[in-house]
């Protein structure tokens, strides 16, 4: 393909993990804290060599627990902050993530997930879906989760994550995996505007000349914690109403609709192209925000289509959100491949089976 953009726009050939760093720096992130773990090490490596040139702070903490508390502190001081880790490291951070959600602190947390449970392996996996979207931390905390499926999106959704974090005063998670983190493909920086600076009158920046203010998640007095819970709930409802993003791929006339996110959705696109060449009307809903989940689109599509096929690199997690989204439970099918990327042939075979074609 002679790309129409080649030669006319500036393109870079980078790993997904590097594109996250480009997006963070473009969004004005100047504080990164982290602790190494495969397959996300390109992120701290990049930040360690580039953050100083941007006048920012890179700090390798002594653990993930220390990392998330450094993030909390810098976020409370009103800075745009980011950390990244993978499965086990994200588990260690959950207490701090809950504290940050409770304290309403904006931050971006990247999970380039690995296989689990436990130490698992470094194979690509989407096994952290539940932990990410259902609130991995205690006390009913939930945070927006974005799922990029290309290097371009690793860059753009990172910028969007900072914007959401600041607008709603909440941690935001980017959920990727080893494939999308480690592969290189061209992307075009600067296609979307980075979020501008934002006033943070609540930040603890030193109280000289003004009343003291607190950033906290501890509420012991009377009904304070109940009121605080309703406030957070109302915020989540606003996020669910305004911030759903999903890609509709060949959806208009689709009889068999795949539902997939991230790397799995890339593979589904190839399978759908092949299925259409055979005359099977296949399409896809690709949730870009995993929380908030595109419930309305899923339900409306389920009403029109013959079948929904949920494809995940796990044994079945997002499929539960598809079931919650629609009353057409009899139309929902699932195909999972834990800890590995399915091939387009695997998915095409399943599509053919559902379409009643044996060839």
């Amino acid at each position: 393909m002679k790309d129409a953009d080649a030669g006319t726009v500036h393109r870079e050939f980078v790993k997904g993990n590097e594109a996250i760093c480009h997006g963070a720096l473009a969004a004005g992130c100047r504080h990164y804290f982290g602790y190494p773990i495969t397959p996300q090490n390109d992120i701290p490596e990049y930040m360690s060599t580039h953050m100083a040139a941007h006048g920012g702070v890179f700090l390798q903490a002594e653990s993930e627990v220390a990392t998330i508390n450094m993030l909390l502190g810098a976020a409370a001081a009103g800075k745009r902050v980011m950390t990244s880790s993978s499965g086990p490291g994200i588990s260690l951070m959950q207490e701090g993530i809950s504290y940050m959600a409770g304290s309403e602190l904006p931050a971006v947390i990247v999970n380039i997930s690995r296989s689990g449970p436990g130490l698992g392996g470094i194979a690509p996996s989407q096994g952290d879906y539940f932990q990410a979207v259902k609130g991995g931390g205690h006390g009913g905390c939930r945070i927006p989760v974005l799922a990029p499926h290309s290097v371009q999106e690793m860059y753009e959704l990172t910028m969007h994550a900072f914007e959401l974090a600041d607008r709603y005063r909440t941690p935001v998670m980017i959920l990727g995996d080893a494939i999308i983190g480690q592969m290189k493909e061209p992307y075009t920086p600067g296609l979307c505007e980075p979020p501008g600076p934002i006033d943070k009158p609540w930040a603890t920046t030193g109280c000289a000349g003004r009343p003291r203010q607190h950033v906290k998640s501890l509420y012991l007095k009377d009904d304070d914690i109940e009121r605080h819970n309703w406030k957070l709930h109302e915020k989540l409802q606003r996020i669910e109403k305004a911030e759903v993003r999903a890609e509709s791929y060949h959806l208009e006339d689709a009889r068999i609709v795949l539902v997939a996110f991230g790397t799995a959705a890339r593979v589904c696109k190839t399978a759908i192209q092949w299925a259409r060449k055979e005359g099977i009307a296949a399409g896809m809903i690709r949730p870009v925000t995993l929380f908030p989940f595109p419930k309305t689109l899923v339900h409306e599509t389920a009403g029109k289509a013959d079948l929904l096929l949920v494809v995940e690199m796990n044994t079945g997690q997002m499929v539960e959100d598809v079931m919650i989204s629609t009353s057409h439970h009899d139309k929902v099918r699932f195909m999972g491949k834990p800890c590995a990327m399915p091939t387009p042939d695997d998915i095409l075979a399943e599509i053919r089976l559902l379409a009643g074609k044996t060839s």
Partner: protein
Amino acid sequence: MSQYEIRFSGSGGQGLILAGVIFAEAAAIYDGISSVQSQSYGPEARGGASKSEVIISDKKIQFPKATSIDICLALTQEAANKYYKDIKSTGILLVDEDFVRETPKGDFRVIKLPIVKTASEEIGKAFVANIVATGAITALANMVTYASVEKAVLSRVPKGTEDMNKRALKAGYDLAKAVM
């Protein structure tokens, strides 16, 4: 061309990931053709054989792994044994003639070239074997222009080694041209 797949393999440290990045970047950035590069990482890459894969296509590439390989480069016996299996029937197994003595058999063409020897004796540094190999693959694949590969090489190699790498690329290109 619909889709063209290349696997660069050898021993960890031979610069095969860089070779893959250079080739894919030549395609994507300088020639404006869709390309994706992936590699083995972490423990997968430890303990000897290492690989890097490049896919070039006339369409946007979604599935980023090689499954039907047009050219598989192997600079070591272990890499040849481990990575030749996905070569397609019209494909090429390109091996270093001194380091791969037992060529795996299959329904593909085998090309043996003195890649490491050319790097160490003709250019003077064994570590440019990856660039010699890239030159050979540029000729064999005929998918990406030589000028673009050279530009990508020069943008990725350490300062002060540009001339040596240019000569390595040309030497590899000529080696392959001689057997085509």
